[in-house]
């Protein structure tokens, strides 16, 4: 079971909402599918993200994958640790491996995302 306090996308991103602040990352399932993550490219603070638009890139040894924003917002911080230790995304995807924090522009978008139960069903279905 994935953490129940987060919301999810079909593209395997998660978002944690606290007031108008949202933290975004990728799920353990996504990190496991990608394998050893060796590089993460994230937007600078101030960048405006559109919902479901690509905002960054995560690279494993073998593959390159886009990151998609679960919600629209303005980037307030990109995880500074991932430059030196991108493997945090594998070891702690829902915690220290977070990608960006944004200030939400449309709170209602969160309600349209998958809850933990729906996301679990999605990955169980393969």
């Amino acid at each position, binding site marked *: 079971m994935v953490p129940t306090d987060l919301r999810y996308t079909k593209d395997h991103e998660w978002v944690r909402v606290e007031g108008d602040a949202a933290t975004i990352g990728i799920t353990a399932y996504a990190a496991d599918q990608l*394998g*050893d993550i060796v590089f993460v490219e994230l937007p600078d603070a101030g960048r405006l993200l559109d919902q479901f638009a690509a905002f960054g890139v995560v690279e494993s040894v*073998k593959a390159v994958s886009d990151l998609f924003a679960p919600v629209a917002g303005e980037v307030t911080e990109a995880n500074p640790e991932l430059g030196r230790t991108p493997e945090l995304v594998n070891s702690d995807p829902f915690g220290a491996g977070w990608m960006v924090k944004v200030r939400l522009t449309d709170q209602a978008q969160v309600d349209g995302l998958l809850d933990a139960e729906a996301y679990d069903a999605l990955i169980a279905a393969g």
Partner: protein
Amino acid sequence: MTDAVDLPIHLTPLTDAHRDLGARLIEFGGWLMPVQYNSIIEEHRTVRERVGLFDLSHMGELYVEGPESDAALNAALVSEPASLAAWRAQYSMICAPDGGVIDDLIVYRLGETRFLVVANASNAAVVSDALAERLDGFRAVLDDRSLATGLLAVQGPRSVEVMTPLTDVDLGALRYYAATEGTVAGIPALIARTGYTGEDGFEVFVDTAHTQALWDDLLDAVRGAGGGPIGLGARDTLRLEAGMPLYGNELDRKTNPYEAGLGRVVKLGKEGEFVGRAALEKVARDGPARRLVGLIVEGRGIARHGHPVWSGDRRTGFVTSGTQSPTLGVPIAMAYVAPADAEPGTVVDVEIRDARVPARVVTLPFYRREA
């Protein structure tokens, strides 16, 4: 994760064994193969530091036999198999008349009148057809045993330690690029001291009926030496660090051996005609139009297959392979560039998505084991 393909996919005798080990399986060269069992980086380090076991049963095994097998292979390939002593091997290539590489190969001489040509899985059928055609007129016949042959590789500094208790072969006498017949775990096999990792190691050819039994015993021994099974993902990063070309990336029909830095493989001095000679003599005379180089990316980003390479405002070439080097901890790549940009120390830019990221040309290989 497996892409749909139109052609039937071959299974090695070990598909179930790989599944039981938790491998992620992908289609590669027409075969369902393990890309990783756990972590590619961990598997890579296991081979560099200890020992790993690979299922390479997808490779093509083409036997050429007959009193003129040596002359036939001299005419079919760019190297000089006829110069091989019995039970020695050489790296070789089969080229088209225009000098383009059809495949890169290992040729083993198994006695006076018998050779084994090992081809890449994705090219095995094409090489088999080309060889059959090129043997025409020689007293030599082709026996394509690709589907009847299993191939396992034991690679890493503890390879001798793993193999010694299992084989009747004197491994101390088996030199690099040599081969011998013997038994491994009681199974009759062809044992070669060859590999594709940059480490010491062995490749063991057996009948497919024995592949599973050999795998089981070798895996026990490899695990006893602190190793484990290794997938194609780590095989790719290992060979890239070792500066070895991968067909489809560094080599293809539009590339000649000299461009790939493999001119030493082409034996223009050998007697007689061989396919590609005139075109290759011209390249040797004029020099290649581009050169394969090693790159270490010095900015942020990982160079990947197909990324353009720039020298100032001039597009000088493209990346053929790239990854984060598990051993060096930096992004490494191989790329074709214009000869003027191929000197070690030259700084070029790799176009990675929207950015131009500086990279330095370095001498290959990136990694060389201590002798």
